C-alpha cells in the first residue's frame, strides 16, 4: 500500500480508532497517542494482512493498544498498592493464597478447601471458568486456553487477577472469623 493509499485509510478509520481508544482510556491526550500507535502498527503490517475487511482488523489493533495501556497502568497501581499493604500486613494467613502461589500449594495449604471452592465457583466471568479449570479441575494453562478459546497470556493474567480477588476474599473471611 502506498503512502497516499494509507493516508486515505487513516482518513477513513481515524474516527473509529480514536473512539475505541477514548472509550477505553477516557483520556483525550492518551487516546490520541494510542490512535497514532495503532495506525503506525497498521502501516507496518497492512501489506501482510490477508483479509479484505479492514474495519475489524484496525479495531482489533486499537483494542490491543488500549488493552496494553490499561494493563500496564493496572499493574503499576496493583504493585504500588501491594507494597503499601505488605508494609502493614501482619496476618500470615492472608499469605496462604498469595498471587504468585501455585494453585496446588494454595489448595493444600488451606484447611477450608471447601470454602475456597465455593469462592471460586461464585466468581464472575471472566474469572470463574478459568479458576474452575485451573484450581478445581487442575488443568494447565495451555489446556485452559484451548478449551476457552482465549490466548494463553490472557488466561495467565486472568488467573493472576483471580488470585488477587480470592486473596482479598480470604482476608475478609479471616477478619470476620477473628472478630
Amino acid at each position, binding site marked *: 500500500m502506498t503512502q497516499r493509499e494509507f493516508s486515505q485509510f*487513516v482518513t477513513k478509520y481515524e474516527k473509529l480508532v*480514536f473512539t475505541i481508544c477514548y472509550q477505553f482510556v477516557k483520556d483525550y491526550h492518551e487516546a490520541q497517542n494510542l490512535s497514532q500507535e495503532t495506525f503506525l502498527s497498521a502501516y507496518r503490517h497492512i501489506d501482510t494482512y490477508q483479509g479484505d475487511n479492514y474495519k475489524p482488523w484496525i479495531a482489533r489493533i486499537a483494542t490491543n493498544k488500549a488493552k496494553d495501556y490499561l494493563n500496564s497502568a493496572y499493574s503499576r*497501581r496493583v504493585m504500588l498498592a501491594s507494597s503499601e499493604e505488605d508494609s502493614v500486613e501482619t496476618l500470615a494467613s492472608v499469605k496462604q493464597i498469595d498471587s504468585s502461589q501455585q494453585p496446588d500449594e494454595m489448595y493444600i495449604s488451606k484447611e477450608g478447601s471447601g470454602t475456597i471452592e465455593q469462592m471460586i465457583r461464585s466468581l464472575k466471568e471472566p474469572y470463574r471458568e478459568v479458576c474452575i479449570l485451573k484450581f478445581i479441575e487442575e488443568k494447565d494453562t495451555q489446556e485452559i486456553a484451548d478449551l476457552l478459546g482465549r490466548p494463553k497470556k490472557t488466561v495467565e493474567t486472568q488467573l493472576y487477577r483471580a488470585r488477587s480477588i480470592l486473596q482479598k476474599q480470604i482476608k475478609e473471611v479471616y477478619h470476620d472469623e477473628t472478630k
Partner: protein
Amino acid sequence: MKQNSTSSDIRAGSSQPELFTADGHLTDLAFKLLIDEQLDSLQSLEVSEHLSFCDRCLERYTEILCSDAPVDLDTGQELPEVVHLMEPPASLHDSVMQTIQNKTRVFYFKKAASVAVAASLTFVFWSGGILSDKNFSKRVNNLLDGLYTSSQSILEQTSEISDSINDFFHSIQNSFHQPRHTPPSK
C-alpha cells in the same frame, strides 16, 4: 474522568454489573457501559482483553459504533440522532503521516549512506594506488560493476546492495592477506 482505587478494582463483586454472559461473551450492558464511558479501569481492562481475541464481540462492538442508526441497548429502539463515533483531533492524520514519512526518510537515508561510504572507500583505494595490482583491480572492477547494478534497484531491493557491499569489504580484507605481486628482477 472517574478515578477508581485499586482496592475497589479488586473485587469478586456480586454487586458489580454483569459484563459477561455465562458462556464468556460480553453482555449488552457491557457494550452500553463501555460506550457511555461508565466502566472502571479494571472493567475496561477485562472488556478490552475479551475484545482482543473474540471476533464475535468485536464485530458487535464495531457494528454498534459504526451503525448509521444506533440502537439503544436498553430499549432496543433506534436512535438515529446519536453519533457514537468521536471526532479525532485535527492533527491526528497529519501526525501519523508525518511520522511515517520521517521513518521512511531515515530508512532510505541509511541505505544511501551505506552506498556512499562504499563508493568513497573505493575511490580512496583507487587513487591511492592500491588497485595497481592487476588481480586486485580486476576483482574491484567486478565488485564495482555489481555495486552499480545493485544501486539501480535500491528502491525495490535494498537488501541486494548490502550483500554487494559486504562482498566488497570482504574482498578488500582478503587482498590485504594475500602477498603483493612483485615485478620480476632484471
